[in-house]
């Protein structure tokens, strides 16, 4: 069993027959029966790459966008808009981010 901590989330990679399961937080199943036939080091490497892909760390900074069309009555709702110029895509592990800014 291999333990991976990524962005303050804890994952374990456990054997399941000829494949591997990725568990999140001890009990949630993120993936089942993956990487059939792969040895543990390879499974752990591939699991980390997969975790980084499917659990991205995103910082969405959305400024006032008066042209955004989503409204409920007079309220203007601004959701995460990845095409917005202020959107920052952050995919690095949180440990690489300084604790004190």
């Amino acid at each position: 069993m291999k333990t991976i901590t990524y962005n303050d989330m804890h994952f374990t990679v456990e054997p399941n027959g000829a494949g591997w399961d990725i568990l999140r937080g001890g009990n949630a199943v993120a993936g089942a029966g993956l990487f059939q036939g792969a040895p543990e080091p390879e499974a752990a490497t591939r699991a980390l790459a997969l975790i980084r892909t499917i659990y991205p760390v995103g910082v969405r900074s959305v400024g006032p966008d008066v042209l955004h069309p989503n409204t409920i009555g007079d309220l203007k709702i601004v959701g995460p808009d990845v095409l917005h110029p202020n959107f920052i895509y952050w995919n690095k592990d949180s440990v690489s981010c300084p604790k004190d800014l």
Partner: protein
Amino acid sequence: MEIKGKVVMVTGGGNGIGEAVGKYFAQRGAKVALVDMVQKNLDRVVKDIKEMGGEAIGIQANVTSEADTARFIQGTLAAFGQLNICVSCAGIIRDGTLLNLDAETGKVSRKLGFDKWQAVIETNLSGTFLTMRDAAEAMVNGGWEGLLVPISSVNKCGQVGQINYSSAKVADALMPKIIIGEFLMRGIRNVRCVAIAPGYTATPMLTQMNQEALKGILADVHLGRLVAPEEIASMIGYVAENEALNATTIEITGGLCYPKGIAK
């Protein structure tokens, strides 16, 4: 296409038809990537597939986001190395009539909100477009045998109270003819496209609705009950296995009729 060993990606895979599709293919030896906005639904379905002895991953994502779409395709490839079948089940409803009138004055008292129009078009049409486009890109570049399955609806014929939903679903139903016509022009032969247009199906969306209204709907269904999500999944399985099915939209409704017995 033989199902065993193939990789299936299903958007809206956390419940309803998407969940049934994921489980159907996992039971038959396919590897399944489930995409949904609700993490706890994904966790539940992936766990169910694990207990069935299947292979699956869950990817939380929003199909209306171009970046998310690229990410869940990339995640599928990172987990399973290829992509063969893509089923676009993610969908929402925001029903309402174009206009509402004041009972006393007969004047317009309320219009259908643009937010209701836009949310449904973004999820049910733009989301399907992005999913189909990026899945097709992966299949063509990978050279894998592929099948694209947009989910339309029998309400593509035009349902009152659903100008947004019906508009999106009629467009989804057109996709196979356009996509395959373009693939023929471009010499792309390894990817098919078949849309499925379900009738009223026993998903949480319908089973939780007003039961009297549901009775009214069922009065027009020859089968006398809602279509089961598993029946939709089995139709998609049949489409996967039958290579002659291509560039078309298949309705599976249980015999849904207009009032007075004219089949839709």
